């Protein structure tokens, strides 16, 4: 039982990482990014390619994937989504849906529908703590998730840029009156969200196999995390990730996802604004 709770918590850290980018875009840009799952999987493929072709250690691929995804996010927001958003939120939603289809099919074309997985040297290592076993890989991805979410929270509270992002999500017009360029801020937010997607891609690509179509699976997890955590709350994302992960592990292999979604549904009924909503 304790082992299962530990497993659930470790899983939750990764889920928080998968959800945090989507939550940010929800809260700041007020956009439901339906391509978030694909961004995660795209990053997983990127890391895999860098591993196999350049012989990089999986962790080192982050040096390339995170900045790359950040830039792609900024460009995407500035060139495409900002323009479409001027015509309302539905067109923007459809654009992200379109993006998800494009990414999925491009991956299919390039990598076929075969399962992929990044192999690491510490794949089967684990730390024994008496009754509990901590797999190093799970511990690592949990750690990455935790650190990223906490750093992001700190960034939002302690830097001018982070503050301007929070201010924009609170009141766009008032933020512009303080000299904040809202479109630019949206670009940064999307860049950051994509950066977290790059990290999430690695963190799901190391322990689990993935396919070009796996994005939708992670989109749904991200959705769950966003809803439970309260849209746009970074710390809420962390707690929600843990709740979601725990629910899944405690539900067992057969009913894991079912239990997670039952928790999600109950949350929607009891506290539709999320645990840490604005």
């Amino acid at each position: 039982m304790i082992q299962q709770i530990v497993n659930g918590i470790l899983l939750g850290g990764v889920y928080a990482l998968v959800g945090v980018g989507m939550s940010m875009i929800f809260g700041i840009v007020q956009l439901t990014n339906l391509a978030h799952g694909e961004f995660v999987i795209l990053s997983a493929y990127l890391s895999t390619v860098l591993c196999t072709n350049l012989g990089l250690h999986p962790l080192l691929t982050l040096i390339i994937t995170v900045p790359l995804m950040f830039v792609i996010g900024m460009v995407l927001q500035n060139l495409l989504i900002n323009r479409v958003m001027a015509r309302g939120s539905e067109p923007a939603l459809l654009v992200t849906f379109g993006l998800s289809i494009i990414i999925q099919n491009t991956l299919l074309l390039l990598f076929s529908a075969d399962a992929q997985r990044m192999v690491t040297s510490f794949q089967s290592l684990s730390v024994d703590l008496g009754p509990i076993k901590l797999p190093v890989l799970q511990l690592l991805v949990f750690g990455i998730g935790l650190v990223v979410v906490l750093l992001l929270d700190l960034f939002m509270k302690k830097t001018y840029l982070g503050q301007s992002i929070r201010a924009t999500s609170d009141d766009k017009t008032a933020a512009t009156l303080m000299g904040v360029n809202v479109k630019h801020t949206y670009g940064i937010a999307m860049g950051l969200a994509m950066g977290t997607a790059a990290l999430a891609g690695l963190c799901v690509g190391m322990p689990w196999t993935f396919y070009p179509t796996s994005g939708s699976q992670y989109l749904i997890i991200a959705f769950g995390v966003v809803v439970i955590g309260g849209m746009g709350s970074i710390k809420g994302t962390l707690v929600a990730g843990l709740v979601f992960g725990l629910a899944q592990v405690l539900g067992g292999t057969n009913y894991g996802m079912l239990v997670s979604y039952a928790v999600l549904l109950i949350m929607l009924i009891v506290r539709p604004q999320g645990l840490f909503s604005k």
Partner: protein
Amino acid sequence: MSEPILKVEHIQAKYGDFLAVSDASMEVPAQQVVSLIGANGAGKSTMMDCVAGVHTPTSGKVFFKGEDITGLPAHEIVTRGLCLVPQGSRCFVRMSVEDNLIMGSFPKAARAHMKDSLDRVYELFPVLKEKRNDASGSLSGGQRQMVAIGRALMTRPELILFDEISLGLAPTIIKDIYARIKQINQEGMSVVLVEQDVKRSRKASESCFVMLKGRVVLSGPSQELSEEAIKNAYFGI
């Protein structure tokens, strides 16, 4: 008299085909307090939004310190030294009082003076210092207005526009806020007061502009305009 700090020339502004300002002009002499009065829906707020860059006029010009700023985005206009305190304060409700104020020093030129500006705002509104760690959403209406004013001061403006700052506030609080505005003006800042309350704004200002149905229909030195004339202009009868 020297060049006015703000000159608005024949602006027209619409929301879709809703005509909010049809033809309005006004001038603000440097270091003066000017009031812009008019009933609900006269177009005062839209006019201020056009000046601050929140809304783009369909025609006409806005000059600030002699430069044409028509159609510039709000985030650029504020860096030039013109700041609007919008109607209803519009604090960042989930951020603390101090974080709200710090946001005001977001413009690059204001950042270096952040500490000084913050001290000055706390001096002006001591209650904000007491509540600096509280979420601004938990404050009273009057205190929120103080946050909004403080936040605007943090941008280090030369001209500050107050859009219906007294709306919904108790008379004693209004009096206090007006006293602070007077103080701000005496320190050299030019001020525009947008008000529905004619008597109060007339008393607080050196010159006065009256709007009716999207036009400025009357203007002059506040003390020289008769109450009767203002009233007729205000109601259009």
